[in-house]
Each structure stands twice: as C-alpha cells, then as structure tokens.
C-alpha cells in the first residue's frame, strides 16, 4: 500500500469516527427542515379553551389586572396587549392566551420545543451564529477531507478506475444536471 493511500485511510478512519455525530445531526435535521411546509420541525403545538367571567370591553388599564386575576395563571406573564376592542392577549413563555373580553372565552395556543429535533435544527440552521459558525465551517472542512480521501481508499476494479469511478461520476452528474435544468427552466 502506498504511503499516500495509507494517509488517506488513516484520515478517513479517524475523521470518519469523529464526524459521525454531526453527520447524523445535519442529515436528520436536513430531512426535517426540507418538509417545513408540512410540519413544524421545531415545535409541537397545543390548544386549550375555557371560560372566565366576561371582563367587559372597558379601558385597558382597568381591564388588564382584572383579566389576569380571573385567569389566575401560575406562571410569569411576559406582556399583555389589547389587540382589538374585544380581544385581549396575554403572552406567556410557551405561547399566547387570547381572551374575548365580551364573552369571556379564553383560547390558549401554546408550543413546546420538539425533543431532539429542536436542538438538531438549531445547530443545522446555525441559529446561534458566532461560535457555531466556526464549528460548522470546521465540520464542512472535515467532510471535504472525508470525500477526497474516500476516493483513494480502494484501488482496482472497485476503486476509482472501476465501479467507484462510475458511482462517483453519477454522484456528480445528477446534481449538475438538476442545476442546469433549473437554470434554464426557472424564471
């Protein structure tokens, strides 16, 4: 085995083990956010309805403490907002509570972070910015090294000169063809 191939195998093996975690994060999150039109990959949602004694549609300064008293929430309130003559909104950590001032109907729409997916998407979409940008760049570098070293792992019929080369060509041609078709068919 040539020294070059030995280095490739060493790099591919060591970096391959190291990259397993983040590769799974990016791949699973990639599928999740690809279907963002069909579902919310970050949150689960719930709706609750109940009634309180109607507070009436008077002045907000008077109504706000009355509504909060009648809601009797056992959690901190972030803010409140008079969205309309009959609509008063209370913002809490996990969502919004809509109070119909005239009827006393209460609708709470809340959300919770989807376990595992929220954190994977946070990393994948780099929502944290600054420090994660460096880590994501380094990971991209590792992926490049893995791709290049992978080409030279096997020689002969199953390597670059044979089946491996054909598969590699397909992997390059398919996205390239898609890009060309897109370029000439999209406005």
């Amino acid at each position, binding site marked *: 085995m040539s020294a070059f191939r030995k280095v490739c195998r060493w790099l591919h093996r060591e970096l391959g083990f190291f990259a397993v975690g983040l590769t799974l994060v990016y791949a699973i999150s990639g599928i999740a956010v690809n279907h963002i039109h069909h579902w*919310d990959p*970050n949150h689960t949602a719930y709706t609750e309805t109940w009634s309180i004694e109607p507070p009436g549609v008077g002045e907000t300064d008077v109504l706000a403490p009355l509504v909060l008293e009648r809601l009797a929430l056992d959690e901190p309130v*972030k*803010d409140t907002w008079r*969205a309309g003559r009959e609509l008063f909104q209370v*913002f809490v950590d996990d969502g919004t509570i809509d109070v119909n001032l005239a009827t006393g109907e209460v609708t709470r729409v809340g959300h919770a972070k989807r376990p595992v997916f929220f954190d994977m998407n946070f990393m994948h979409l780099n*929502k944290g910015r600054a420090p994660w940008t460096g880590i994501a760049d380094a990971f991209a570098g590792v992926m490049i090294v893995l791709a290049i070293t992978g080409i030279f792992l096997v020689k002969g019929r199953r390597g670059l000169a044979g089946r491996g080369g054909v598969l590699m060509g397909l992997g390059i041609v398919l996205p390239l063809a898609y890009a060309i078709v897109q370029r000439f068919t999209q406005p």
Partner: protein
Amino acid sequence: MRRILMTITLMSLLLAGTALAKEKVYGKGVSEGEFTKISTILADPDTYAGKVVRIEGTAVGVCAHRGCWVTLASDKEEETMRVKVKDGVIVFPKEVIGEQVQVEGIFVVNKSEQKCDSTKKGEPEIKCTTILQVSGTGAVVNWK
C-alpha cells in the same frame, strides 16, 4: 489528551455563555439613534416611505415555521407594524412573542392598485389594500 479536553471544555463554556445572553442581535442589529413611534409612522406613512426607520415594541405575532416576519405592537392600542425580513438572513424564533423587540429597516408602502384595476364587470369587487411594513435589516431582542 488533557489539552484536547481543556479546549473542548473552554469551547463548551463559550458556547453556553453565548446561548445565555439576554440581549440578542439579529442580522445587522440596530444602529444608535432615536426610535420613531409606530403610531407616528402609521399616521403619516407617505412621509416615511422608503426611509430607514428604527422602531420598537412587543412582538405580538411571528411567522409560524420560518420566522421570516414578526409583528410589533404599536404604542397605540389595536395598531401593529409588520416587519418582514429576508428568508434565512434573520430567523425570529417562535418564543419571541411577548418580548421587547427593536428593529431597523426601510419602511415600505405597498399599494395593491393593480388588483383593483383588473376587477372585471360582474365580478365581486376586490378591496384595494395598502400594505405598510418595515423591510427589516436588523433587530435586537431583549429576552426576559
């Protein structure tokens, strides 16, 4: 090995510190200067059309899945201002609702007059709408 562990520990602490920050800057942030009241802009939209404005208010609505817009409560009841940002450049998290948000961007007045003109006879009248919104370039959220 000890050095590697030390480096990983330091990086984790740095990441945790950033994640815990109370004030978070999105996009280009907000430059120094006075904030214009949302009610002032909405009362006289033509004066502010096409100009850079700085506004602040409680977030009362947010784009459900993509975080590509946020609605801020005005200083006046029942009035809001929508802030649209470029997809992916700024992503407002769902949890932003109820938080104090400062935004800088260009105030845009969009009149959908074309739709009104294209209404044919016999068809139900399409209501002419004017969309007032800030095309946001940056924001700062003061997380509670």
